[in-house]
């Protein structure tokens, strides 16, 4: 028998407090729907290769199936002339496949983020057309395809950076707050100096020394973004280290590490959690800004910042700037809405008020829960 007052969420046992938070989150319709929309977009873009690709999803050729989206086949496999990878967009290859009674299933967008459309009727950047739904950029690459891949890389970058900077930030804040004294004092002064460094200049200098790729950028930005969480985690630890249950744990002979991870950190999580969204949206914007300036991801990468930059350079092609702007603002707005709802759900005062409203709604529930 489960103890009364317990519930399950995604198969995990949750406390009534968590249940109340979940309920509060659901009660915030704007945040709740934003989460679903964002998740849908994110999951879709995770499978970007199946949505926008210059290789077909499936080919039926000569009684056999081919999946060019997963494997590379030489042109000779389809009776062509070259050993190089088949260019399925080439009418010649399409004809070869058609001759043997084969067929191809294409993804909705027949362009990869780096596929150049050489058949443009007008000089690039070409305006939206049936072929290129949102037009092409100044190198003849499809905007929709670049958006899908760009969205994915932005969100992934933001998430990875947020996770890493949280780990470093929480660890640093925990050590400072828990030990206090000189550790805290010296570490705080170091952070003050470190946060005074001009991040952007450092990035620009570093970008001129190495060619920044995804991981390089992540590392450089991590070197500065971890500081965001230190303050709040440190404050939580400073508060919690004087709690009686921490004293009891010390009196019971637990080591400092055990106390920090088992007793203090779980109770400091809520405060840290409300900060994560700002780090996430901050990371995404920073990456966009760097790409816009040309110090971000290597040239050719799908990036919203690069598209904005192209929009700025090609004011006669407003679809570039407008598209990038719209996608960025929708993404950031969704994130803000979600995390606003998360923050409110974790707010203890708001929680009680909302729970009271919810309790009124469920008055007809059996009284078994109260009588334990």
């Amino acid at each position, binding site marked *: 028998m489960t103890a009364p007052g317990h519930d399950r969420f995604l198969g995990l046992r949750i406390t009534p407090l968590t249940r109340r938070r979940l309920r509060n989150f659901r009660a915030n319709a704007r945040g709740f729907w934003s989460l679903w929309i964002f998740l849908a977009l994110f999951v879709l873009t995770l499978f970007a290769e199946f949505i926008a690709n210059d290789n077909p999803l499936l080919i039926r050729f000569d009684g056999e199936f081919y999946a060019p989206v997963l494997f590379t086949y030489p042109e000779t496999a389809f009776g062509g002339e070259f050993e190089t990878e088949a260019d399925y967009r080439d009418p010649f290859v399409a004809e070869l496949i058609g001759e043997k009674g084969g067929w191809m299933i294409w993804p909705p967008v027949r362009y990869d983020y780096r596929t150049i459309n050489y058949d443009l009727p007008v000089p690039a950047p070409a305006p939206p057309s049936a072929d290129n739904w949102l037009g092409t950029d100044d190198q003849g690459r499809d905007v929709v395809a670049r958006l899908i891949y760009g969205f994915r890389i932005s969100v992934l970058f933001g998430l990875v950076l947020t996770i890493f900077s949280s780990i470093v930030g929480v660890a640093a804040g925990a050590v400072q707050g828990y030990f206090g004294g000189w550790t805290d004092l010296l570490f705080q002064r170091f952070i003050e100096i470190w946060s005074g460094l001009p991040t952007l200049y450092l990035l620009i200098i570093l970008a001129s020394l190495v060619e920044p790729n995804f991981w390089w950028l992540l590392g450089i930005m991590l070197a500065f973004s971890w500081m965001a969480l230190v303050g709040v985690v440190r404050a939580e630890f400073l508060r919690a280290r004087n709690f009686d249950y921490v*004293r009891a744990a010390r009196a*019971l002979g637990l080591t400092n590490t*055990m106390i920090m991870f088992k007793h203090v950190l779980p*109770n400091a999580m809520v405060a840290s959690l409300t900060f994560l969204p700002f780090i996430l949206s901050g990371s995404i914007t920073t990456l966009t800004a760097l790409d816009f300036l040309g110090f971000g991801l290597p040239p050719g990468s799908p990036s919203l910042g690069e598209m904005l930059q192209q929009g700025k350079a090609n004011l006669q092609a407003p679809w570039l700037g407008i598209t990038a702007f719209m996608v960025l603002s929708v993404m950031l707005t969704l994130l803000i809405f979600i995390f606003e709802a998360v923050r409110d759900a974790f707010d203890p005062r708001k929680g009680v008020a909302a729970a009271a409203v919810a309790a009124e709604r469920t008055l007809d529930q059996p009284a078994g829960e109260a009588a334990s």
Partner: protein
Amino acid sequence: MSVAETIGDENSLADAEPLLRVEGLKMHFPVTEGLFMRRTVGHVKAVDGVSFTIAPGETLGLVGESGCGKTTVGRCILRLENPGAGKVVFAGTDIAGMKASEISKLRQDVQVIFQDPFSSLNPRQKIGSIISEPLRVHGIIKDPTKRRERVAELLRICGLNPRFADRYPHEMSGGQRQRVGIARALSVNPKFIVCDEAVSALDVSIQAQVINLLEDLREQFNFSYLFIAHDLSVVRHICHRVAVMYLGKIAELADCDELFDNPRHPYTQALLSAVPVPDPTVEEARSHQILEGEVPSPMNPPSGCVFHPRCPQAIETCRREVPELQEFSPGHMVACPVVLGK
């Protein structure tokens, strides 16, 4: 005759080798100013030369008003604070100077029960996990099934349903939580328990239950308690001997009944006269001794006897000389030249 000897010789319970001997314990907290070049501008003399002994199976009450250093004495014995000076001899070893690495054993012998049952339990840990944690950490019981059995047993000892192991602290009442706190302290089979205002936060009916539980446990396991409290009636009920503290020093130390029936130190007298008698007519007729003024700052305590500015019987000597805790009658120690001079 030294303080320690007196107590050891005269008290019937303390005839045997005391379990705990505290000698001249001092804990001064520095008050600092400045950012880098920290200047010490003074010391809060939280505990300033406290000595007492506790025999096996004995309960010593430690009373006094807020800020007099009771809790700090308890924490020094637990080594949650590192004592500035003095000796804390527990079962023959001085724990005041122990290195951090040697403390592990002490942790199993000396335990604590805190005042606030709401903040002394981790809100995110289940009761079972709270109680079994010390068993796991010290490797007392390694087998998880046996550990669960032990937790159930501890809960039963403390008058709780073993099913509570699956609950979170917030699902329990204050009294139940305090019992969990006691069960956690018992888990390591301690010899000595510091009860830091262990019943002060509970309402009266629950207080009685918890005190009875503590007494039962003492009989069952032969614990010694250091019972820190400000409620004198509770102290009278549970303690064998009582020490009255004022501003970091012990003013009077005597057997429980002796102290309550025959208080000698002016501060003890004032303290006891402040306890209301639950009979309106008696209470009406009683004369109260009301102390003048405030408790002085422990940063800048008065010269001589720290109580002299508020003492109705203060004489010139009190201003100059720090009184020593001396024997007034067998087992009754007072730190007051006026009383001792009589």
